[in-house]
């Protein structure tokens, strides 16, 4: 029963499908967030066991098998904060596009930028 590894993989590829298929730029960024969350759940779920305890307290060395792995947790906190920063930069660029082309459609933006490229 390895659902904590299988289901994040499914969600990751759902996000990849949305990223490749969606026409809306904002939806692409939302799918990027989906993929990021799936990766985080997958990495934390690698050492998952039912009823696992958080690695907090003093006598952790007496209950080594019952606690969660603290190393991926420390790394994933970093990943979450960097994810928000990356999303913020994405949205800055999207707002530029919306102001320039008045559209959030990939195809329209592509066609419009090609037109403006042809003009000059």
């Amino acid at each position, binding site marked *: 029963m390895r659902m904590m590894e299988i289901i994040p993989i499914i969600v990751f590829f759902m996000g990849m499908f949305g990223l490749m298929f969606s026409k809306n730029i904002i939806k692409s960024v939302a799918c990027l967030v989906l993929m990021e969350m799936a990766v985080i759940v997958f990495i934390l779920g690698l050492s998952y066991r039912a009823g696992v305890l958080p690695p907090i307290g003093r006598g*952790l060395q007496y209950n080594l098998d019952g606690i969660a792995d603290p190393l991926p947790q420390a790394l994933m906190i970093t990943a979450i904060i960097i994810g928000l920063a990356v999303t913020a930069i994405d949205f800055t660029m999207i707002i530029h596009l919306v102001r320039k082309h008045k559209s959030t459609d990939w195809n329209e933006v592509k066609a419009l930028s090609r037109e403006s490229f042809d003009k000059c």
Partner: protein
Amino acid sequence: MTLALLLLWVVSGLLILQERTVFRMVIYLGVFSLITTIIFLFQGAPDVALANASVSGFSTIFLIVCFEKYYSAKDSAKKTKPNMPKVRLAGVCRGVAVLLFSVLMCVMFIHFLPDSEVSTYLKHQYATLFYSDVGGENAVTAIYLAYRLYDTVFEALMLVVSVIAVVHLSFFDEMSVSSGRQSEIRHSATAIRTIRVVCPIIILFGVYLIANGHLSPGGGFQGGVAVAVFFVCRFMIFNIYDLPVGTVLKDEKIVFLGIILVAVFVIFLGIHQYFPYQHTALLQTLYLLMMNTLIGVKVALGFMMLFYRYVAVDRQ
């Protein structure tokens, strides 16, 4: 129970995929992040859960305010349609191909998952040694403030770089041209009353998370985002841009320098060796508290800057 939660997670992801309007997608994204938070809690990771909860709350408010400002129905009505070729059949073929590719990759990844157990060597090392090496009672905080300090410093650097990028990619050149002006966004009176009541609780929670980061779930990152949410609430109550952008940017860089200096002196130079042995526990606690506070202030300033920078840009 866990399986039901995971299935709910998948369903909320599918809701994001099928949604076409932006506002509803943002709300679904918030729901998705909330369910992810509960999954983190089930995985025995309350620190990650707190980080994700505060980040998802922040980002949901952020996106809603952002799109309230930039992405109105007026814009989508008056946009000019470019002469795009009609490629409906090709689009369907492309969709089917992408779907097949995703399903194939998914099946392949699940099929080739390794059967072996994850190595527990580092887990045992850290769980046994962190109390005498670093101090505090939270193994996660001990790892990211001592054993993996390079990661934390690099993460703080990434945040500084992203804030600088957002500020310099924004639209107008003068740093604080909009300070002291009223925003044109009007929020509902009920929402503002509610925020007024919740506001002090939020900042108290943020300070609690920062100050107790080495003893209980929480820490600099989580508390910093909670404090940033307080400033977002403050903007929503008063509706005024009174933030001097240049000063806050400078402050953030100074706090980042402080993080590097404390890290260098305590971890890399080992300053506690020069103090008597009986003070070690006190020095360790002082170090953890100081780093958590510095990281919290830095993260709060950075995210506050991100939010105000989005909202304070004028609509033409």
